[in-house]
């Protein structure tokens, strides 16, 4: 029986680059995409807090949009958005992909 030698020289038990998973773009998982309707947004930032994929972009306390490189299209932001006068500021729509 032939012994199989496993080359372990490339196995690294320690990853020294913190947060390097940003190289893995999870946006390709998405089938629905969030759309922001700014006129209904009160900038409560609940969408930012609840997004599991850190994909709601906030600048100076205001929602600017979504990071489509990572957004997985779960729809939590849209479901939880209280919006203004009962009108949600986020809705999900089917994404057209080439």
């Amino acid at each position, binding site marked *: 029986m032939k012994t199989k030698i496993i080359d372990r020289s490339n196995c*690294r038990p320690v*990853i020294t*680059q*913190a*947060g*390097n*998973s*940003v*190289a*893995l*773009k*999870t946006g390709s*998982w*998405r089938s629905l995409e969030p759309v922001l309707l700014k006129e209904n947004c009160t900038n*409560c*930032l*609940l969408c*930012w*807090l*609840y*997004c*599991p*994929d*850190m*994909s709601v972009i*906030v600048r100076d*306390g205001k929602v600017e949009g979504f*990071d489509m*490189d*990572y957004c*997985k*299209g*779960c*729809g*939590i932001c*849209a*479901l*939880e958005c209280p919006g203004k006068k009962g009108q949600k500021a986020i809705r*999900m729509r089917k994404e057209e992909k080439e």
Partner: protein
Amino acid sequence: MSSSLKIKELSKKEILLAQGHRMCQGCGASIVVKMVMLAIDKPIVACSPTGCLEVTTCISDYTSWKIPWIHSAFENAAATMAGVETMYRSLKKQGKISEDMSFVVFAGDGGTYDIGFQSLSGALERGHDMLYICYDNGAYMNTGIQRSGATPFGASTTTSPAGSAVPGKIHQRKDITRIMAAHNIPYVAQASPSHHLDLMRKIQKALSIEGPKYINILSPCHRGWRSKPDDAIALSRLAVNTSFWPLFEIENGKTRVTYIPKDKRPLREFLRPQGRFAHLFQPENEWIIEKSQAKIDADWSALLAEGACEAIEE
């Protein structure tokens, strides 16, 4: 003197869990970890046993952690963190380190209720200064939805499949939060991501106390709960409002209910949207819902009798 928990203020902080993690879309665990780390001010050193969170945040050469984080074996996350904390105390004594740090374990229910239980119990007994967070999704989700000690009574899993032999899991969940409290540690609490302010306050309070702390946090998993990808927050809110998942804390033996639902909802409203409980709505299984409701009502009354509520908010 913890920092502000206003969302506007929090949004200026760096989130210490990076994008690109492989948790399923809409996963509750990611939301829980994000909220916990947002509430912490000191540098964090963390550890996770094997589980969904661990496999999805550390794939081969990639990590989603922006903090020092250790993957321990399934059974010894608490012992691993206890070792780190002991080393830290020694280095401090030797004058080699001066900075204050927070030592945190993020473990699933499998690694807490079952496989990691002995090491957790030991670490609590030895009094290590650390915070143990269990993100509880109620089954071994990452290996294919096998029942755990946290799986609710009547839930269908791949090892307690509802059918003609059994109507889902035939055993009650362990009351792990109470079991942890029975170790007489200074702080034990239960939280839910739907009540984020309550959750983050509990984190800050826990970390202001020296010694071992335990917080059990509900973490919806739509793959295992057989629900919808967008309902993690909605379901955790229902869990609280039906008292399936009461929010309370036990500080130095004193119980305090931190949230009383204005309108306590029937348990069915929490069960209905979840496919793992679908079979319970067949006439021959209705008794399971009734039995669960009776248990929840009794537990809730006992909890209220034990700890009067001071604050109703959110």
